[in-house]
């Protein structure tokens, strides 16, 4: 297992290096240069000022030197300063917004896990039944549903028509400070219901479909026939022999679904006005705040990479073939 993990870790480091290189290339292949948005809208921007700023941002150095400096900065979380009027360090801006995004993504991951797996397993066990057909239809709709439209519909129903849930922000603006601890938690929970649901919805469809097909595949295998032939009770065959094997690939899928989930943050955070990294990314793109855009891109992909690593470790622990060291 140690050898397997070491190999994965090495691949991960290579991938990480590739992410930084590709991000850097994206910055520098772009037409114009990062300073032009400041220059284009500022009539007082003289050529001398441009040169001074170029030197200040290190843009006058050769590309490989710039890349190296940028990497060094990244190692100490120095991602430069925002172009926004506040000129705050990019990492500070991202750091204060990460917890909200991580919380929502973790919650929706949990919901996906808890709902999709039983749904997929039941569908597989009752293949072709009415229940299976209904879930299949729901899954197809789930695949095709634009997340932002689902959000709008939910806002229309729960926020406006029935007016039972708040539709914007992460906590109430009025009277939030006076609430007791539980009152605050409840207030947060109310605000989180719709965003978490929207965020989980797409993944729900994908994972339950995947769970269904893996379970069906496992149930057709010889060792299941053997287990049944031995006269084991059906319950044991299904939950001990089949389910355990069908759950293994789910771990990998959960790891692979991290980028999609995190990417969704941009959409639901801007719709529900949630102050997370997704909203920051959207605002930065609208304002052409390049240091924030690049910082966001790198940090989010590093998080994805860590998510994959976590999934790999879980996989290694769960799969006896790897845990016991037989490659």
């Amino acid at each position: 297992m140690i050898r397997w993990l070491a190999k994965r870790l090495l691949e991960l480091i290579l991938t990480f290096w590739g992410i930084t290189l590709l991000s850097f290339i994206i910055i520098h292949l772009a037409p114009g240069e990062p300073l032009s948005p400041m220059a284009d809208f500022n009539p007082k921007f003289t050529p001398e000022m441009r040169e001074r700023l170029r030197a200040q941002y290190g843009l006058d150095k050769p590309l490989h030197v710039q890349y190296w400096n940028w990497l060094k900065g990244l190692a100490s979380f120095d991602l430069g300063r925002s172009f926004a009027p506040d000129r705050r360090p990019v990492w500070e801006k991202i750091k204060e917004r990460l917890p909200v995004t991580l919380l929502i993504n973790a919650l929706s991951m949990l919901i996906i896990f808890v709902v999709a797996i039983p749904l997929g397993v039941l569908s597989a066990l009752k293949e072709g039944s009415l229940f299976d057909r209904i879930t299949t239809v729901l899954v197809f709709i789930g695949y095709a549903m634009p997340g932002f439209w689902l959000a709008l519909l939910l806002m229309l129903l729960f926020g406006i028509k029935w007016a039972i849930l708040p539709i914007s922000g992460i906590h109430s603006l009025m009277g939030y400070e006076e609430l007791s601890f539980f009152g605050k938690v409840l207030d947060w929970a109310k605000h989180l219901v719709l965003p978490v649901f929207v965020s989980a919805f797409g993944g729900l469809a994908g994972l339950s479909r995947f769970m269904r097909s893996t379970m069906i595949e496992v149930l057709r295998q010889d060792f299941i026939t053997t287990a049944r032939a031995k006269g084991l009770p059906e319950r044991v065959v299904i939950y001990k022999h089949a389910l355990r094997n069908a759950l293994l690939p789910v771990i990998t899928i959960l790891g692979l679904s991290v980028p999609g989930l995190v990417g969704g943050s941009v959409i639901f955070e801007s719709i529900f006005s949630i102050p997370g990294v997704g909203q920051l990314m959207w605002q930065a793109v609208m304002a052409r705040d390049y240091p924030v855009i690049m910082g966001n891109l790198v940090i989010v992909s590093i998080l994805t990479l860590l998510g994959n690593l976590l999934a790999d470790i879980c996989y290694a622990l769960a799969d006896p073939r790897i845990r016991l060291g037989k490659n």
Partner: protein
Amino acid sequence: MFKNILRHPLGAVGLIVVGLLVLAAFLAPLIAPYNPYAIDVKHVLEAPSLAHPCGTDLLGRDVLSRLIYGARVSLEVGIIAVGISIVIGVLLGALAGYFGGLIDSLISRLIDIMLCFPTIFLILAVIAYLEPSIVNIMIVIGLTSWMGVARFVRAEFLSLKEREFVLAEKALGASASRIIFLHILPNALPPILVSATLGVGSAILIESALSFLGLGVQPPTPSWGNMLTEGKETLEIAWWLSVFPGLAILITVLAFNLLGEALQDLTDPRRRPR
């Protein structure tokens, strides 16, 4: 093939809906009841009625006509973006699978790296440097969605390149490009077709999300995504502005997905319905 799809119940539904959409997009000027750009200040924000089956928007424009013209944008973006991603995916996948070795390691690594970027973040980062326009959206979506195709084309080439018919061609002195494009690639066409069909659906979803965020197709050009932006602003007074464009996206994507699934059932022997 065509007949078989029509016999597949879900595939038939998908094919018919896609066909109707393509027809509507082509014939938009003929079938749209109004000019989609015509502002009519006397009929602002009217609820659906016989004259305006899907209501009118903030500027009094007919929503149904804008939806029909929106189909043009969505289909264009979906199909061209997928075309780009298929070309890149097939080329890189074929190179990696056929030549193996260093080329394969490099391309496989590139795929892993690309898969680590949350797609929306990557697209937004690139869009930030370009002007948001229909052409740029197509290119960016194409450039960020080729990895799946590359993966299975690579796998297909790995398994086919040692087969007798390929070895025989090699022995006869056929060039690498001849073997790749004339002998191996045709075998990989069915899964490519499936993935292209499913890809159109997801490209349309991405385009509409970008347009909704104000970073895709720009008004006044109607796209289902940017119509929903207006729908959000008027959510409390005009439900039809947020319901119909979303429904159009849902139905279109669903149709492409059903068609893709049907093609997969028909071409993949392991998935033949029993």
